């Protein structure tokens, strides 16, 4: 069991140590979660529906604080971190949501440009990257379309483009290929892999076992009933840290 041994810090991008999460007075949905994510690595998070994948991801992208335990991100303790410092950390994280969460009254272009605008990038500087991203996801001719007029797959692509446009240090994706055809799924995975090669740490939650086999050196985390198992043994002792 992975939760038996203590977490090893040592330059990890993300450190969870003895983390538990409960909503209200109910039993913990996540229990004794301990792992480290190394910079530049690629992780798949798997598990049955209701195992707690989304809850774990919510803590990763700072939408939820743990009920107990220690969470460190980019070397800083997030549990005790004051609220006003969170936006700066969130700008270093890209998130692909299962339900896309596009802003309905904004065009595809404006949805993709959102992280850059929030970060204060000028319109002049963001128009190029946004245009390139639109072309890359195959929506160059639908840049002004509202989400409601896009198909599920197109919305998914816009959501992914929005997550990666600001070149995040950590990319968290919750079922990112659930609504796209296999060809687009491979293209999106290729994008994640390319970002990973550029140094972005990627965490992808998925049910798709075929997807996992496509990425070399990817490590797998498996959640079972709120507890983390580590079939490859790579989480606690990733290859670079093994002695």
């Amino acid at each position, binding site marked *: 069991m992975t939760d038996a041994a203590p977490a090893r810090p040592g330059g990890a991008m993300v450190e969870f140590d003895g983390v538990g999460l409960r909503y209200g007075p109910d039993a913990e949905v996540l229990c004794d979660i301990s792992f480290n994510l190394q910079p530049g690595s690629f992780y798949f998070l798997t598990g049955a529906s209701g195992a707690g994948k989304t809850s774990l991801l919510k803590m990763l992208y700072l939408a*939820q604080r743990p009920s107990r335990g220690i969470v460190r991100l980019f070397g800083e303790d997030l549990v005790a971190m004051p609220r006003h410092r969170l936006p*700066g950390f969130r*700008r270093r994280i890209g998130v692909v949501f299962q339900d896309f969460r596009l*802003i309905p009254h904004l065009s595809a272009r404006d949805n993709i440009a*959102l*992280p850059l605008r*929030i970060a204060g990038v000028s319109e002049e500087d963001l128009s190029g990257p946004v245009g390139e991203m639109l072309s890359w996801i195959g929506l160059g001719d639908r840049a002004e379309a509202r989400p409601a007029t896009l198909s599920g797959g197109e919305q998914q692509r816009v959501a992914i483009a929005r997550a990666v446009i600001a070149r995040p240090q950590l990319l968290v994706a919750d079922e990112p290929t659930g609504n796209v055809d296999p060809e687009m799924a491979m293209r999106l995975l290729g994008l994640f892999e390319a970002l990973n090669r550029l140094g972005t740490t990627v965490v992808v939650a998925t049910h798709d076992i075929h997807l996992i086999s496509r990425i070399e050196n990817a490590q797998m985390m498996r959640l079972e009933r709120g507890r983390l198992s580590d079939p490859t043994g790579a989480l606690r002792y990733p290859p670079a840290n093994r002695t």
Partner: protein
Amino acid sequence: MIIPRVPVQHRRLLPDHRLSGPTPWVIAILMMLTLLAAAAGVGLARSANAIGDAIAGRVTVQIVTANPVTRAQQAAALRRAAAAQPFVLSARSVEPEELQATLGQWFGSTEGDDPVLKSLPLPALVDIDFVGEDRAGPMRALRTLVAREAPGARIIPHAEWLGPVARLIRSLAWIAGGMVVLMALASAAVVIMTARAALGTHYATIEMLHLIGATDRQITRLFQRRIAIDTAYGILLGSLVAAAILLLIGWQWSGVTSGLATTASLGPGGWALLLALPLLAIALAALTARQTLLAALKKIL
């Protein structure tokens, strides 16, 4: 800044249609009532002050000696003697024609040739204004003077009979001021409800903005700007309607030339207050919206 500056591209984060639906109209009605209440309050306060100033140091000596010649002599002697006193600012005999003209309004005879009116034994009146704020000393000295120059004459301080009227007017002015405060609070409550409704309506957008790194300040400025503009529309509309009503009342009031009505006016200070109120209202709305939004956002991680 009352209406924060937000880049055009950021403004699009909120839908184009107005956030608040009926808010501008409710604010317009409240603003109109606030301005009318404020105008009434200022007018009444100035009227009460004018009456107070006029009556505070004035007395009328009523000489009721039966013989008209003696009565007139006593009035003249009293006026002269009073005018020579250091505590008297002015002393004036009220002419019999002035008294008859005043009474003629009640008798239905304005020409002054009514034989009944002419046959009435009218008292001789002397109006005396005191110097300074001290009333007790001059009153004692005046009583001595009256006893010497016009024995049996009655001294009537104006404050005795106009004082309650002035107090009533002052009370009405305070009530009007209270209404202004209550309507300001009601306006603030409307803004709070609008801000909360806006947050509820756009919760998904706000949550998304938070998750991609938007600060509370960035989000607050968006909503604060929109709410301030909405309320500014309402305040402008309410102010225009109130101004039209006040101008109409002022025009009609200008035809009233008698009695207490002439003491009611807004004055430069009053107009300045009425002009400042809409700006204060916009500032209050923006500040209320900002505090409401910040407090609500703090509850979201």
